[in-house]
């Protein structure tokens, strides 16, 4: 019992630390990649190649004054950034980073844990993430923020249905909700993206919409809503929203890797289990690069187009994908 608690403490601390570092360098990478794609130099003053830029940003933000607008609902205004941040960290708990390893005479799971209801857990936590954004928009007593919050919630619940349907494909193929189980099932067959190309596409598109990332970033469309639901936020509360968003980017990439791209699987992984973490990191970084690339390439959708796309294109396609998967499994076996 004590052993389990100590193991959990060490792993949680490690994962939270890795996520925060990933957040810091993801913002840096996004600025640097954007600069390179637009033939600029990007951040290059703080440290070699600007590598210390995230640290400088963090220090700056922590010394900033926090402004609480006069009409705001004070409790909700304070709670909203925390409610956005917690699900972002908690959601990665069920993602396997590698096969089990022997360490100090114990069998240790790489990755925090493995629930037999892992995917349900992910969907549940992803739904909780909406609350932080809605409350932020509502409590600010600002019209931009309210509109941003409403748009965000409508968009997130619309795409959540397509997201939920797109992961039914891997569940049917693997016959389990545990993410470790799904990865192991892919070891015996092949990466599920080959069986579920449509499902993987729907998952990625709906995932982008869930994250409010470009081209689905209507809730924070700068030209019309200034900053959307976090217009009134400043200082560390503002950066908690940022952190939540970028950590969720990492989480969605990691889930896509696990469900459709073989998770930690790769050559020699059964002999050297630690290699799994490397493969997993490479695939996840690939997805993160893809998200940044999409943001820099595609223009933003109009709001009615966005809702129409979610309900009239993505949802029927996702339903169709479930039926096709069901039929193919029956006939191919």
């Amino acid at each position, binding site marked *: 019992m004590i052993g389990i608690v100590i193991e959990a403490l060490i792993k949680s601390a490690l994962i939270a630390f890795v996520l925060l570092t990933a957040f810091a360098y993801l913002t840096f990478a996004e600025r640097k990649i954007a600069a390179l794609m637009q033939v600029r130099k990007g951040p290059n003053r703080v440290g070699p190649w600007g590598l210390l830029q995230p640290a400088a940003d963090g220090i700056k933000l922590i010394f900033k004054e926090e402004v609480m607008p*006069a009409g705001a609902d004070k409790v909700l205004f304070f709670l909203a950034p925390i409610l956005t941040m917690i699900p972002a960290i908690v959601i990665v708990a069920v993602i396997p980073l590698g096969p089990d390893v022997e360490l100090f005479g114990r069998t240790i799971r790489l990755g925090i844990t493995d629930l037999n209801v892992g995917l349900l857990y992910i969907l549940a936590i992803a739904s909780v993430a909406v609350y932080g954004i809605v409350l932020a928009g509502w409590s600010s007593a600002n019209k931009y923020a*309210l509109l941003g919050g409403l748009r965000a919630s409508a968009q997130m619940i619309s795409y959540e249905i397509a997201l939920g349907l797109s992961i039914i494909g891997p569940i049917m193929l693997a016959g389990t909700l545990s993410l470790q189980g799904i990865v192991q099932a892919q070891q015996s067959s092949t990466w599920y993206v080959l069986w579920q190309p449509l499902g993987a596409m729907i998952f990625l598109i709906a995932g982008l919409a869930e994250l409010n990332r470009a081209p689905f970033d209507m809730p924070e469309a700068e030209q019309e809503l200034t900053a959307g639901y976090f*217009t009134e936020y400043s200082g560390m509360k503002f950066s908690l929203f940022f952190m939540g968003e970028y950590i969720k980017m990492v989480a969605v990439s990691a889930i896509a890797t696990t469900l459709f791209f073989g998770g930690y699987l790769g050559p020699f992984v059964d002999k050297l289990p630690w290699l799994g973490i490397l493969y997993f990191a490479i695939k996840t970084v690939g997805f993160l690069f893809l998200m940044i690339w999409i943001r820099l390439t595609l223009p933003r959708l109009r709001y009615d187009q966005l809702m129409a796309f979610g309900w009239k294109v993505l949802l029927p396609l996702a339903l169709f994908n479930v039926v096709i998967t069901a039929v193919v499994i029956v006939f191919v076996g």
Partner: protein
Amino acid sequence: MAHEWIFIGIILLFGTIFAAVPLVVNTIVAPKKPNVLKNETYECGMETVGDTWIQFKVQYYIFSLVFVIFDVEIVFLFPWAVAYKQLPFFAVVEGVIFIVILAGGLLYAWRKGALDWV
């Protein structure tokens, strides 16, 4: 099985700490000089007119109603999908009929104009 949830509880604790600590540090080290103008609602320099918390577009409400229906139905698909390979052929047909009814519901909402943003 129960001990798997200890891990979840502990990372929940860590998540809360990692969210709360920066806020606490911020309140300690940041300057605090509020004044009436600074605390006004930000509207690009204009003075705010009217209340913010008013009735909003009913369309958002309709979308959330449709969402609740579909989300509940997707939850029913999960156990079917997990047990899919052990199910007899009859259950497969039943599942497909269920999805067709779902699609019918979607078509109904579509034809009624619930999915149109006006």
